[in-house]
């Protein structure tokens, strides 16, 4: 008895201590969350209003009939700092704009076994709009979209799968091309590198555009900047880590082998697999940089890498997810079509230069701007990746 009493006493003390600490933590969390909220809304203003969104959101914001949204990640989980994270952020933006009901459901998958039960859970919870994230969910989405025609679906990084499914796809090589030109313009060693997670179109499209942008720089300026890791003529030989897990030693090894060969500007494509490369650049004291992908890395990635980001090739998963839900809430669902993001509609683009602002010469910055314009207008074009291949 005595012993049990002691156990409970310890338990109680522990609880009190934790309560005390936790209180502080609670406040701390509140503040940071507040701060984050401000940053995101700023970022949103930046991209949304300045680019393509002003025509739709602001005017129709009042007419939404909020829908119940359910979001299913693939096996990378919602903390992947990549498409799952961006898609979920888009759902939250839709909540903020009144298109989605508060408290959308988030279902994280740990393996392929989870996809079907998660989608079934969404349906059982009465979701009206289900967002599935990534090609791994394509077959499950197709099957359940067919048997649930009244539900609207959005699938990220895949084409439309039926009359009630909106596909979100991205011509990211357009922006990657400009980033390649920029990287070739700032490299001091004359060598830039790129590697991907897995050789799938949504990854290699970045690497392909990037390599072509470097080649374009060489052509225009008579330079001979070299690209490691990707050759548009031989896409099967692209350098891939095979994993999206930044903790896997192969990721660091892949980056370091390129640094060994003299690369100073690196474009690693796939979630957070660029972070180990940032660590390698820092620990070697290389005066180099990383090119980010998806969401502006300065916002999305940890602060210790802040000085490393030359630019981010932005892929507007967040904004397109929001748009798809908003279209549904406005009574005109976009199901049956693929929303292809590109430079023209602002769902693909380059971020600001942030820490590298001062190191990109005005001429180079102007050339990059011009290239972006030329790609939009079609003055510069090439054999682009076909998006929508299932």
């Amino acid at each position, binding site marked *: 008895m005595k*012993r049990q009493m002691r*156990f409970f006493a310890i338990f109680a003390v522990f609880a009190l201590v*934790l*309560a005390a600490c*936790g*209180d502080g*933590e*609670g*406040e701390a*969390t*509140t503040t940071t969350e507040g701060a984050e909220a401000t940053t995101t809304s700023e970022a949103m203003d930046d991209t949304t209003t300045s680019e393509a969104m002003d025509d739709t959101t602001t005017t129709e914001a009042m007419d939404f009939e909020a829908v119940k949204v359910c979001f299913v990640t693939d*096996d990378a989980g919602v903390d992947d700092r990549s498409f799952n994270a961006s898609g979920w952020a888009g759902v939250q933006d839709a909540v903020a704009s009144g298109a989605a009901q508060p408290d959308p*459901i*988030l*279902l*994280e998958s*740990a*393996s*392929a*076994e*989870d996809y*079907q*039960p*998660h989608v*079934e*859970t*969404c349906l059982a*919870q009465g979701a009206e709009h289900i967002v599935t994230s990534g*090609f*791994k969910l*394509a*077959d*499950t989405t*197709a*099957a359940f979209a067919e048997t649930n025609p009244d539900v609207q679906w959005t699938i990220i990084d895949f084409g439309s799968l039926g009359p009630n499914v909106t596909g979100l796809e991205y011509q990211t090589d357009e922006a990657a091309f400009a980033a390649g030109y920029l990287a070739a313009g700032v490299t001091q060693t004359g060598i830039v590198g790129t590697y991907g997670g*897995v*050789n*799938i*179109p949504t990854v290699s499209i970045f690497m392909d555009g990037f390599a072509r942008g470097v080649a374009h720089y060489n052509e225009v300026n008579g330079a001979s900047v070299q690209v490691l890791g990707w050759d548009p003529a031989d896409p099967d030989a692209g350098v891939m880590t*095979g994993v999206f897990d930044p903790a896997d030693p192969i990721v660091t090894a892949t980056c370091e082998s390129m640094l060994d060969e003299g690369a100073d500007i690196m474009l690693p494509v796939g979630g957070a697999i660029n972070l180990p490369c940032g660590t390698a650049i820092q620990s070697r004291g290389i005066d180099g940089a990383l090119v980010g992908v998806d969401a502006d890395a300065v916002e999305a990635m940890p602060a210790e890498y802040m000085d490393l980001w030359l630019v981010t090739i932005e892929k507007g998963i967040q904004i397109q997810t929001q748009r798809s839900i908003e279209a549904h809430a406005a009574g005109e669902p976009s199901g049956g079509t693929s929303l292809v993001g590109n430079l023209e509609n602002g769902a693909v683009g380059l971020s600001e230069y942030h820490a590298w602002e001062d190191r990109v010469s005005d001429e180079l910055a102007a050339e990059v701007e011009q290239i972006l314009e030329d790609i939009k207008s079609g003055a510069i074009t090439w054999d682009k990746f076909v998006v929508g*291949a*299932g």
Partner: protein
Amino acid sequence: MTDQGTQSPPDERPPNGRSFDGVMDRIAGIGEPIRRALLLPTLALVLALVVGAFIIMVTDVDAWRRMGDEPLAALGDMLDGVWVAYRELFIGAFGSVRALSETLFTSTPLILAGLAVAVGFRAGLFNIGARGQIFVGGLFALWVGLHVDLPAILHIPVAVIAAMIGGGIWGGLAGLLKARTGAHEVITTIMLNFVAAFFTLWVLKTSVFQEEGSTIPKSAPILESARLPTIFGSQYRINIGIFIAIAAVFFVYWILFRSTIGFEFRAAGFSPSASLYAGMNVAFLYTAVMFLSGALSGLAGATQTLGLPPYTVTDNFAGNIGFDAIALALLGRSHPFGVLWSGLLFGALIAGGRVMQAAAGVTVDLVIVMQSLIVIFIAAPELVRAIFKVKAAEAEPTQVTTGWGA
């Protein structure tokens, strides 16, 4: 690891033991041995639930915000959060036909892979390679499922046997390396996991498995005749894989405790040198036991490629099964029936965790934390004994292997 307190409880008779009472007791779950075998895991589960509740409370951010103003209401919120989470966990695991189907479906590969690890433990081998063996076995089954045209009555057995051969070769390779060169199976099986995982990634992008015209690493849909038939109709995922798993439990029980080779496996687990002295071919035993272990993992691979709707296969079909299997084998004390129970427990936790995530907003990671806690408590019987004041004899430590040098 030490040798003390390991190995056969007194009721386990040598291979030629005639009485079936022990078996019946285990099956009926009424005998003293089974009570003792279940006591520690049950206590560990209770402790894990307590700690899990604590974690749910501590991570309830909204409640902490209220803590300053109305501490009692905030505490009430936290307790309510725990109640809702555990209620949903239970409902998700057992609360409906769908829940039961999901629990059994999720348990199936866990039981099979858990048996694989348990067989290794019994022979003193630490098979970390279930993951790789699941990949290779699964790919063998997938190949048969895609390219061999047979009626279902033949197609499924052929695909399943192919999976056992594939997994068996992958496991047997590690056994052979140990037998011939002394390479430690922990190292070789971990490395073979990487080889298998990357091979899977690559091979799914080749025309052998890929759908024509596709550019993503995903297989074509397997032929209807190779899909494991569902038991309660296509709206429930539970399929005949669970029968394969249960049959495997009895088969492994028979091999380990009723056959001569199983006796030799366990003898080699006790002491390789004594077994050698007794005239056993230890090199052969290592290879054979790793082949058997790999074949069981391969079966788990088959249930993942032949039994998982929508019947197309993407790269990571082994998921966490290979590692959960190690925890399972420990929890089940490397006994086939123990593995069956712990496989069902883990399956219930995972299936219930999916529902808990949706309905209670508790992250699915909590389930992984709880699984880990259960295993930690199992591995630290002194702790459990101290807390619950259980007699030493009843909470004896779990057998693992005879050591790293074995």
